[in-house]
């Protein structure tokens, strides 16, 4: 029986691993480096070092506003989506009820339907029902797809949980609520966190749904950047992306360090 360590001894694994990491991270490194490009090319013409684009990005009121909208919508949609996804995962894991397969299919539906179809359908629905387009309509639409994104990791983590733990808690007179709060939730916490992170990134990066559902004054960052194609994309975009990467990297480091401290 092989153990995890044996895999590293398989010839070529190390090289393949580094190749994949390079493939994933080189474009990001190039992006960050080019944000310091003195010329206005965000493609590949290096013409000297300059932090000029960070100043331009900070001064561009529309871009700053779109970042605010993106972050607000992503945070709220992620919170709501993760809570709902956790409840859904708890309800559907390790039980059998009639119509379970239909329920699980419905939960995964937003991931299967093409973006553009979902976006137009939601827009038509909002217009028909009379929901005004704005930040709250964006949050509603984003929650629709953050729920299935967050659901899958949480469900996977729940399935991997040893059922003996829940039984032991029940034997020791813990009520279902106490068992949930003090045993199950802490154990599936990494699943909830990864579900939340995936949902946050999915919401932050969404273009199609955000474009159609946003109302006047609520353009999100990806839509703003995408609409720069006509006049040309400047390194301002690189600067903003670098700042976002730096922010999320520091958040992740912080949560890792805190996690270690409390273990």
């Amino acid at each position, binding site marked *: 029986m092989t153990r995890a360590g044996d895999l590293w001894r398989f010839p070529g694994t190390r090289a393949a691993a580094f190749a994949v990491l390079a493939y994933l991270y080189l474009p990001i490194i190039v992006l960050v480096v080019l944000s310091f490009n003195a010329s206005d090319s965000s493609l590949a013409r290096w013409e000297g070092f300059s932090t000029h684009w960070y100043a331009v990005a900070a001064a561009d009121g529309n871009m700053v506003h779109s970042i605010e909208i993106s972050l607000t919508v992503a945070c709220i949609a992620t919170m709501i989506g993760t809570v709902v996804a956790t409840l859904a995962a708890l309800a559907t894991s390790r039980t059998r009820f009639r119509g379970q397969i239909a329920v699980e299919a419905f939960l995964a539906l937003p991931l299967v339907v093409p973006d553009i179809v979902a976006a137009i359908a939601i*827009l038509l629905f909002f*217009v028909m029902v009379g929901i005004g387009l704005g930040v709250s309509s964006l949050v509603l639409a984003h929650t629709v797809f953050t729920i299935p994104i967050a659901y899958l990791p949480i469900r996977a983590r729940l399935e991997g949980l040893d059922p003996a733990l829940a039984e032991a808690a029940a034997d020791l007179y813990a009520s279902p609520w106490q068992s949930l709060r003090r045993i199950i939730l802490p154990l599936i916490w990494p699943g909830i966190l990864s579900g939340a992170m995936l949902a946050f990134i999915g919401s932050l990066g969404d273009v199609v749904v955000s474009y159609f559902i946003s109302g006047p004054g609520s353009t999100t960052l990806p839509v703003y950047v*995408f*609409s*720069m194609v006509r*006049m*040309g994309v400047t390194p301002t975009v690189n600067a903003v992306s670098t700042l976002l990467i730096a922010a999320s990297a520091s958040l992740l480091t912080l949560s890792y360090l805190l996690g270690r401290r409390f273990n």
Partner: protein
Amino acid sequence: MERLTKPILLCACFALLSVGASPAHAQSKELLLFNWSNYMPPDLLKRFEAETGIKVTLDTYDSNETMLAKLQAGGAGYDVVVPTGPTVQVMVRDGLLMKIDASTMSNFKNVRAPFDKPTFDPERAYTVPYMWGSTGLAYDTAKVPGVKLDESWKELFEPRQPFVGQIGMLKDQNEVLGAAAFYLGYDYCFEKPEEGQKILELLEKQKPAVKVYNSEGTVDRVGGGDVAMELMWNGSFHRAHKKLATVAYIYPREGLALWGDNLAIPKGAKNIENAKLFLNWMMEPKNAAEATNFLGYNNAIKGSEQFLDASLRDDPAVNTPEEDAARFRPMRDCPKASVDLKDKIWTRLLR
């Protein structure tokens, strides 16, 4: 603490929904502009705000088609949109634009011909001109020292030696097929299958000499010398020329596409008077010139020349000489048969 979380969450949700769903109660000092990013100088909008006290909010789209799709699906609420000519025709036909009789506005007398009577809005009943541009041929003169290229599409579709393998084309069906149609003497909205077949053959014969089909990054690839010849918009040419002084712009004698962007007020706009004020304000020579200086595309307003940057005034690609202006063919919305034929050719070409 757990006792309170549920009510607190409920309150938060209600607060959120009420904030977003509050209707725009007649904000008299606001203007909601729907445009491409970076397509209107931020300083110009700040000056408009200072002069009129109206605050401009910008929302963005990436192409005429997506803007049209959103408005057709009912996503209203914007006060000013910026459609290109053929899209104006579609929007008028679908009843998406408000009739504003721009020809009666006080600054309309500044609009110069032929932009006061364009084919897509002959009476300027719905739109006001903004920027216009042409799609011509740019090439690096350093590659052919001492030789002046013929002012014809032949140089693009049957390129001579230094340019083979160094050609960039726009990935735009209407631009590429339009240029091919002009070269072969067909109408922009050609419909006959034989004409389509000839165009496809011409483009397929040219294909091995083309380095890239991409509408983005034209300024970088021409200015950086990655391609020696490019089917290019004149404003992009102006910016590439700043990086590489040896590039030149040709107005092919068989005809070249002329496109015009316009300002219009969609149905469902809330601040109609502010929008009309803005449209009128944009027809003033000083303001149109500021937009041109920022974007590198020309405007349609008489008297703006005195406010233009010298580099734009002196660039024949932007400030078109009279004899070349006769070669312009305005882009227009083609009938379905033509669009379907073009779709087929384009798909076959890029397979």
